[in-house]
């Protein structure tokens, strides 16, 4: 075991335990960590936005390459900032409608292609009892159909329709169970990451086995 001499690492350890102390109860160390992270985040993004976005995408094209037409979207972007001034907040609608309108127009055919048509195509499977794959295809087909029927709330879930919808609920429960089972790993991974940081980086314990 070899303790790290890097002060930054120990600062990280301090903040790690400050946040973990919340598990016991809320306290000033946790509040400090909360506000420090917000401040660091803002400062980080300001610098990043300047060097990676504003400079190459606006300052250089406008002032070095003479693309003055970019002043129009810049003005629209500044209009967005007027949202915080109640008297002029209506100006922000121009920028918002410009981008949201374009984005919505772009999204319609693309979503149709990627999320609807391709998924429907992939559901048109070979059904049969000749192989495990074909039997699985039957389960998939019935599953997709029954869950879609369950989500169709315009018709009352009665009779055959209601029965198929109930089958859809079973498929949904299995789906949510699978998601939960996977999610547990995600949550545990987050803490494992911190454990590795403290044990390896700070305390210098060799965990490679």
């Amino acid at each position: 075991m070899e303790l790290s001499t890097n002060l930054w690492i120990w600062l990280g350890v301090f903040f790690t335990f400050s946040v973990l102390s919340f598990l016991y109860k809320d306290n000033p160390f946790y509040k400090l960590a909360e506000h420090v992270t917000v401040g660091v985040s803002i400062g980080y993004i300001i610098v990043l936005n300047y060097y990676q976005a504003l400079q190459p995408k606006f300052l250089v094209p406008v002032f070095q390459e003479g693309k003055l037409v970019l002043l129009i979207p810049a003005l629209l972007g500044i209009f967005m900032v007027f949202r915080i001034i109640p008297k002029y907040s209506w100006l922000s609608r121009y920028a918002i409608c410009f981008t949201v309108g374009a984005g919505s127009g772009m999204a319609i055919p693309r979503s149709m292609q990627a999320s609807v048509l391709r998924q429907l195509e992939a559901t048109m499977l070979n059904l049969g009892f000749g192989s495990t794959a074909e039997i699985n295809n039957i389960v998939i087909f019935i599953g997709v159909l029954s869950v879609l029927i369950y989500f169709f709330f315009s018709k009352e879930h009665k009779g055959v329709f209601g029965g198929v919808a109930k089958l859809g609920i079973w498929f949904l429960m299995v789906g949510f169970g699978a998601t939960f089972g996977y999610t547990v790993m995600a949550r545990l991974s987050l803490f494992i990451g911190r454990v590795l940081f403290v044990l390896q980086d700070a305390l210098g314990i060799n965990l490679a086995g």
Partner: protein
Amino acid sequence: MLWKKQIPLAIAFIMGLIFGIQYFVPHRISDQFFQGYLDWGIVIGIFGSMLGFISFYRAHGMRVKKKAPAWPYSLIAIAVSIFMALAGFIQGRETGTIYSNMYFYVLVSIEGTMFSLLAFYISSAAYRAFRARSAQATALLIAAIVVMLGRVPLGEQLSFWSNIWPSLPSITNISDWILNVPNMAAKRSMELGIGLGIMMLSLKIVLGIERSYMGSD
């Protein structure tokens, strides 16, 4: 009314119509127009993102000015953000600089640990709240337990029956089947719903039926 509502709605309609149709027009001019818009959209976003910074300084600045409860923390947040920005502009952003170290050892530590608290909350929820109150809830829990075991190496080791009867599926095999068949079927239906929902909402925005994104009057 005209300048505050009608014209913005008309802009949304025209832009939506243009870019909805543009997808189907393979002409070079259509493509150049589209690429030109992309540059405009990025510049709008860059300047629009300033709203976030201004809101941050405004909110915390007001708390300090009015000496609201816990106002020293707001002062710390403002001071740290200015320090971080100055460090980045003056010293640079490469590994080893104050900017990089603050990000990696402060922000990553705090944000990572905050989300790692979820590991504890999910454990507590597993103990206190996940109950097999009905047949369907039982199906959910069984699927969850099988997938949990299937996702870790230990699950394969616990499948002792696979050693005796190799043709029987192991926990990992069953977990893979659950994910690839019933889970996939349920999620596909949800993805179809999401895709259709995106299309419908986009259409409503373009046609001016959906106006909540514009904010209130």
